[in-house]
């Protein structure tokens, strides 16, 4: 199964048309595919809170958004998630590479990994964890749920999901 293609197809099936990204090594493949897929407007961000601002604008413009980013960004975006996305009841699927999990080779990545789920829980953000490639089949339902609830949703994707480093 081509995970990257499955992700894009689920996004398109749920009428996501606006995607912003901040790179991570693990996300290189899916970002390249988004850039080259005419179903999406891709606007790369310089920082994840900026990206969430773009997504808020896109949502109010009538286009369903998605942000693709690394889990370190959960630390960067706490205020934006609470004061923008949640305060104004806006949906935002966040496809997040979950660095610092099993198989990680860069020790410092574990420092934010241990805070990632705790921060998301503290923010009452609905959170899903993809560990095996076949977990991608749940993305369709998760996206549907995200736009139905008009809430931010974290989809954590670890190294094992992406097939190792």
């Amino acid at each position, binding site marked *: 199964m081509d995970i990257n293609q499955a992700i894009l197809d689920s996004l398109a099936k749920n009428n996501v048309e606006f995607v912003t990204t901040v790179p991570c090594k693990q996300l290189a493949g899916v970002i390249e595919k988004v850039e080259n897929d005419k179903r999406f407007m891709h606007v790369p*961000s*310089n920082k994840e809170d900026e990206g969430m*601002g773009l997504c*808020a604008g*896109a949502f*109010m413009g*009538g286009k369903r958004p998605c942000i693709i980013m690394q889990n370190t960004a959960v630390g960067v975006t706490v205020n*934006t998630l609470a*004061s923008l996305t949640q305060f104004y009841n806006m949906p935002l699927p966040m496809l997040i590479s979950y660095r610092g999990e099993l198989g990680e080779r860069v020790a410092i990545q574990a420092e934010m990994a241990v805070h990632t789920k705790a921060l998301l829980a503290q923010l009452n953000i609905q959170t899903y964890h993809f560990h095996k490639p076949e977990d991608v089949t749940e993305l369709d339902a998760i996206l549907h749920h995200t736009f139905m609830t008009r809430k931010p949703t974290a989809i954590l994707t670890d190294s094992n999901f992406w097939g190792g480093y």
Partner: protein
Amino acid sequence: MIRSEIIKNLVPVLKDQLVVCNIGLPSQELHMMGDQPSNFYMLGTMGLCSSIGLGLALTQKAKVISIDGDGSILTNLGTLPTIANNVAHNFILLIIDNGSYGSTGDQPTYTGMKTSLAKVAEACGCDNVIECQAEEAVNVMKTAIAGDKMTIIVCKCESGNIPVPVIELDGPVIRHRFMEEVKRKNA
């Protein structure tokens, strides 16, 4: 002239336009002097006014005006390259540059010292950057609204504030009435 006077002068020009307004006093001043459903008041997330405006401009047809400030642009300086490289000709970014963090007590920003936001915007690749004085704001904005090019306006003014009430509207109410206006303008 201070920011609240610029906003007061702009209210007739902004009538029925989609306006994304910066956090704190700018939103409170606009709310007090010219509330309309097509105003989106940011009650939090300093720095994201221009990003919200750009996202909105890129995804629908109507003109979008972001009223930002020097402090907020400095907070999210990465927004200028994104704006420059994702051109939306229906987007006007007005940066009211009073060289201070007005909402927090007029602490000075670097734009009142050596930093020129107009030059920063140009260096980031923005094509149509206009620096003007407070007295020129209305005419510059009228021209930008009548035109068909993305415009970045850096409007220099004095530091200072007037007393204004806080905005008591709920976030989803602000968002809902704003989105109804977006739909109406794109119908």
